[in-house]
């Protein structure tokens, strides 16, 4: 009984918070955009668009109607995926953003997974080998790299590996015109992989420093716990004691740190995309804001918010799963 239902109720509450956040943000944007000096309708349509487009937008977003009606239409439009038409590209916003989100995820998710796997196992390993050169240098490396600004690290990597060593391309996701693949197949090409390496490595290092250090600290404590002694007495190998028992018991601080991760990950993603000109949703948002392409900026931002909120939800879920003492207490 209890556990499953309690978990469901908890998730429902978190989901409600997630929706509330998005709602608040959307409303905030609505208000903020009305604060832009000048004619607020210029945030929805631009004189550069064709008269037909302008008329359609005027009608769909109720630009002649009172503010409250506009607000209602704004929300319903958003829910149905109508974000207007891009000023710079004169295409419906929704067509632009779908592809971009995939590009972002294709970079961010592998980086996150790699970072956590390497961070957790790496942290366990160096805690075991405490006092060795490996441990000291790995710890120092992590302390230094977590403080370095990610965008700057990207530049350093590009200068070293792309300009000086010529090993990898200096930006973008694919070489223009290199192939006619589209959809999933473009992600399987060698060209894509070559472009993926540098940003993926930087992001992995950036995301991985923190779990490495947290895991190391946690393991160092756990390795002094009584049950470790019994594990050794049971005749288990040192490796099993460390990786099967100590590691699992040390995971709790990592999961509570995952809560902060979503915001951190998203910020990192935006910056990496900016430096590498990686065509993701972060870069889209930044360039749209710089171009004053309001419909795109708004949609991109909200999509990023959705990603962040979903990330937080998943983090909350994980927290309860990892440590049974939390679950049952």
């Amino acid at each position: 009984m209890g556990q499953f239902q309690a978990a469901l109720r908890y998730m429902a509450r978190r989901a409600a918070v997630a929706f509330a956040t998005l709602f608040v943000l959307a409303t905030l944007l609505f208000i903020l955009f009305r604060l832009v000096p000048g004619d607020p309708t210029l945030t929805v349509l631009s004189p550069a668009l064709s008269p037909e487009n302008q008329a359609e937008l005027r009608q769909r977003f109720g630009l002649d109607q009172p503010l409250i009606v506009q607000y209602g239409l704004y929300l319903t439009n958003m829910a149905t995926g109508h974000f207007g038409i891009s000023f710079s590209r004169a295409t419906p916003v929704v067509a632009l953003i779908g592809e971009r989100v995939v590009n972002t995820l294709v970079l961010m998710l592998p980086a996150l997974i790699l970072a956590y796997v390497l961070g957790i196992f790496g942290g366990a390993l160096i805690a075991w080998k405490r006092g060795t050169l490996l441990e000291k240098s790995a710890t120092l490396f992590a302390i230094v790299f977590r403080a370095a600004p990610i965008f700057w690290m990207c530049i350093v990597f590009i200068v070293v590996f792309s300009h000086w060593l010529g090993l990898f391309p200096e930006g973008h996701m694919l070489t223009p015109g290199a192939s006619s693949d589209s959809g999933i197949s473009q992600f399987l090409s060698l060209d894509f992989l070559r472009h993926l390496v540098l940003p993926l490595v930087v992001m992995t290092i950036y995301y991985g420093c923190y779990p490495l250090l947290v895991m190391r600290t946690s393991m160092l404590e756990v390795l002094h716990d009584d049950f470790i002694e019994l594990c050794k007495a049971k005749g288990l190998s040192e490796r099993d004691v460390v990786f099967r028992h100590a590691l699992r018991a040390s995971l709790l601080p990592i999961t509570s740190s995952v809560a902060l991760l979503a915001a951190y990950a998203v910020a990192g993603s935006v910056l990496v995309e900016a430096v590498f000109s990686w065509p993701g949703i972060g870069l889209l948002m930044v360039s749209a804001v710089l171009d004053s392409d309001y419909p795109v900026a708004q949609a991109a931002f909200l999509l990023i918010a959705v990603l962040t909120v979903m990330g937080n939800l998943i983090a909350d879920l994980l927290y309860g799963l990892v440590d049974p003492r939390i679950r049952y207490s």
Partner: protein
Amino acid sequence: MALLEVDRLSVGYRTTEEEIRAAQDVSLTIEPGETLGLVGESGCGKSTVGRAIIGILAKNAAVAGGSIRYKGRELTALSFEAMRAVRWKEIAFIPQSAMNAFNPVYRVGRQIDEIFTEHQKLNAREARKRTVELFKKVHIPASRLDGFPHQFSGGMRQRALIAMALALKPALLIADEPTTALDVAMQDRIFSTLRRLREETGSSLLLITHDMGLVAENCDRVAVMYAGRIVEQGPTHQVLNAPCHPYTMGLKNAFPSMTKPRDETLISIPGSPPTNPTEMVGCSFAPRCPFAEPRCSAQMPALGAVARVHFAACHRVDQAMVMRRRAMERTAWSEKEDVLSAAQ
């Protein structure tokens, strides 16, 4: 040949400033099927000896001398990996704190299955069958197997530990203060469970404890440790009825007896054990001993025979009977206490 022969074992701990000898020249033997009690105050080094035997000393501790022979095989020469074949199958260990002995994030059943999958190479299902049988032996319902350690009561946890320890029928079981955290009734049940299982497996028991009463009830022989050394050793009834070392005499006083008059308060040994016994010349107990003479502080007494299998390390063993009588009087110890506090 004895099952276990510990010969002049010394174990040292390295702290940042110095090396401390936790155990010095400890010798003891255990025969198949017998129980040896290793008794002493906290910090006297008895737990260290237990851990040295099974090879799970902390990273900053190491055997500094002597030998540990199990069935003729020298254990101190074995690496951690090589000892794995001995651990649990031949020598098992029950730790002091049953509260924290199990890994809190894994289910109890799985942690016991591990014994069988590791040592007997059974698959999960077979291992689980054996675990269920084990639980039956200690009267824990099989439904509890899927529980986590924090869901078990202290007594249940300890029983699970005992069952797990004897699962592979080890020839020697080392129990380090197995019932410290439990109440007396529970203690009783645990020990009867232990006795029952040992009858089945024929395992010897090295019982490490500070509780003389437990030793009196459960052990064939007893070794008394003080400040890292064995000060007295012999058959339990002899050592307890006719102790030959002043420390043992003091220990006897410190334990309540059902036969003594009730309004008598316990007599305790004044002072406290030395912090770094290796620096001391002479008998480590001399500062607290009511019978100390000048030669006691000058020279370390050797473990000498007072009867055929009874040994004590005291310069004045020949006056044991006199000392014994005197030790039963409160004034012997309170005078010493006065001397000690005057010296401070």
